[in-house]
């Protein structure tokens, strides 16, 4: 059965969603990701949705779930490359994607993960 490939990039994982996924594939992705986060002790997860023409409430929930599960496993999730038409539609839909960080592209997403990690590490000192 087809799976979405998960690549290792440093201590982050990169997932590029390029097909119009059916629900089962989306569930498989969630499972695969959590397994791999633990397996590689990944500290970041980048989900590239720049090929997605549609993000509906199911996909939105899936992204939010991945972000929540990753956080529990001490990894940061950033969703990158959302298309303008998709963003406009999500706003209209009223889906807030609460708890999901976003960035324009993979590069900026990596910067975000790095920045968050530094903040986390120095968190105790910076309390003011």
């Amino acid at each position, binding site marked *: 059965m087809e799976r979405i490939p998960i690549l290792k990039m440093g201590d982050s994982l990169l997932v590029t969603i390029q097909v119009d996924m059916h629900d089962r594939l989306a569930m498989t992705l969630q499972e695969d990701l959590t397994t791999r986060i633990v397996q590689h002790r990944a500290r970041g997860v980048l989900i590239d949705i720049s090929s997605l023409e549609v993000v509906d*409430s199911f996909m939105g929930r899936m992204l939010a779930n991945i972000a929540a599960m990753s956080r529990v496993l001490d990894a940061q999730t950033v969703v990158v490359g959302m298309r303008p038409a998709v963003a406009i539609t999500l706003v209209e839909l009223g889906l807030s994607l609460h708890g999901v960080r976003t960035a324009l592209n993979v590069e900026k997403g990596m910067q975000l993960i790095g920045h968050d990690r530094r903040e986390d590490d120095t968190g105790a000192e910076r309390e003011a």
Partner: protein
Amino acid sequence: MPNAKHEAVPIVSHDDIVKVRQRVRDWAVALGFSLVDQTKLVTAASELARNTLVYGQGGTVLVEAVSNDSRQGLRLTFEDHGPGIPDVQLAMKDGFTTGTGLGLGLSGARRLSHEFEICSTPGKGTRVVIVRWK
């Protein structure tokens, strides 16, 4: 380019939800909808197709090109013979607070459409009709 004025797509498997998205996209493009409008149509269709499959236990969607005076539009009619929704108002109101798929899908589809109509009888089934004008 569809040369008929309408098309019926069965919704009996998860793959069919993808198929519905593709067919609605094709129709929207053929009718000349803008990219944002296409996306709204396809997203609404995705929500309703999923409801039809998961809650309605399978059904169909009828895609129709419609016109009204000077405007052109696309009408989608989702129909199933599933359990039906006991309290539609409640389902749609709670859609956002409880986050259950059904209500979320219905209210989401309504927000993305210009016209929204739902008719549901417990024990008989559900019919949802949405229209988006160019």
